[in-house]
């Protein structure tokens, strides 16, 4: 049977992708941030899963204002990198896992989550920056990736509670898939940041670190946090953090923290990163 072995969270700032693509990772501005992922890349090389379910948000790339699905799952064989206005990132196309994605879709919808089935979808920095951070720059990504796009652009996103419950439904779905697969769930986005208005540049270090702590140890309570608290305390774009709760919901009640990293700032954003081992 398929099983979820680990959860990963990471921010997915576009400037991180640009720094990687332009070979600027050792510059003084970037070096301290990339240092936080050195352990992770080594760990990932030793624990490469068969499939990553990658929870991220589309930043007006695959979905225009014509259609904004709250939860969308990529069921295709291949997902090309998106052109976000400066040409597509020079990274490999992402190969999906259509059989597992179809199984998840069926299972999760029957658990009352109305996922939108997507076959054709370009994937933007929200999905490809985490892959670069954890896998480096291979010619092909070393595993299959199922994109799970969450609307956090058009307010309101799904609640933290709903995201956490979706994680639990994902776990149920994965564990009933017949093939023997090592699956990781990644939750991306955040941490505190605001990209608009006079309050742009907002960072809330203590709130972010409390969020990480509670995500690990008391996710049930954390999931009750209302949207307005994210907006007020972590910035209008910090609300992306609800996606981390999908990852957490997919793991067991008790997890082991393999790696924890926090850094201010990458571009406009506080970077947070976790690897959680899904204790047996």
């Amino acid at each position, binding site marked *: 049977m398929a099983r979820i072995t680990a959860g990963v969270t990471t921010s997915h700032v576009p400037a991180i992708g640009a720094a990687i693509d332009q070979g600027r990772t050792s510059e003084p501005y970037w070096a301290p941030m990339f240092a936080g992922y050195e352990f992770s890349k080594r760990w990932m090389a030793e624990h490469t899963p068969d499939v990553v379910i990658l929870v991220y948000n589309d930043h*007006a790339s695959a979905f225009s204002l014509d259609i904004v699905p709250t939860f969308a799952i990529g069921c295709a064989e291949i997902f090309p990198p998106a052109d976000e206005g400066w040409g597509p990132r020079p990274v490999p196309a992402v190969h999906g896992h259509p059989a597992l994605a179809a199984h998840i879709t069926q299972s999760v919808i029957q658990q009352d989550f109305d996922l939108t089935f997507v076959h054709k979808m370009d994937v933007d920095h929200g999905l490809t920056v985490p892959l670069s951070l954890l896998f480096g720059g291979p010619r092909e990504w070393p595993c299959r990736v199922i994109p799970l796009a969450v609307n956090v652009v058009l307010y309101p996103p799904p609640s933290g509670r709903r995201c956490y419950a979706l994680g639990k439904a994902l776990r149920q779905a994965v564990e009933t898939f017949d093939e023997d697969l090592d699956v990781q769930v990644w939750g991306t986005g955040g941490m*505190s940041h605001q990209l608009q208005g006079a309050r742009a540049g907002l960072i809330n270090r203590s709130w972010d670190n409390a969020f990480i702590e509670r995500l690990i140890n008391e996710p049930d309570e954390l999931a009750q946090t209302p949207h307005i608290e994210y907006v007020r305390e972590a910035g209008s774009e910090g609300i992306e953090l609800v996606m981390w709760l999908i990852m957490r919901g997919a793991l067991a009640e008790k997890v082991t923290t393999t790696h924890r990293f926090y850094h201010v*700032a990458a571009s406009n954003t506080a970077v947070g990163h976790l690897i959680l081992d899904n204790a047996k």
Partner: protein
Amino acid sequence: MSLHKPYADVPGTTIFDADQARKGYHLNQFCMSLMKAENRARFKADERAYLDEWPMSEEQKQAMLARDYSRLIELGGNIYFLAKVFSTDGLSYLQAVSTMTGMSVEEYRNMMLAGGRSIEGNRYVGEKK
């Protein structure tokens, strides 16, 4: 019943909700058209003519020509859509976002390196630091 907006008292912040999305529909769809290289080339060649192909308000077009991002956000724009415009201009998020703060790019970048804008005094309109 109108939309409940508990975020209305967050200072310096416009939440991109359904009301804003309705105002900004054509503006944001124009932005997305710049995801194609040939459209970027046409836009760069004659911005006004390209904008006139979209049923945007004159206010939105003027704000776009001026790259007045604060105004564009007020008029229904969303930063992830507007990103297609400043990417076309060769600007990063940091460079574009800083223009909404009244700080120079350098001042803004230094603020971020020093830990970012403090949350203290920035939760509510009128909150004391």
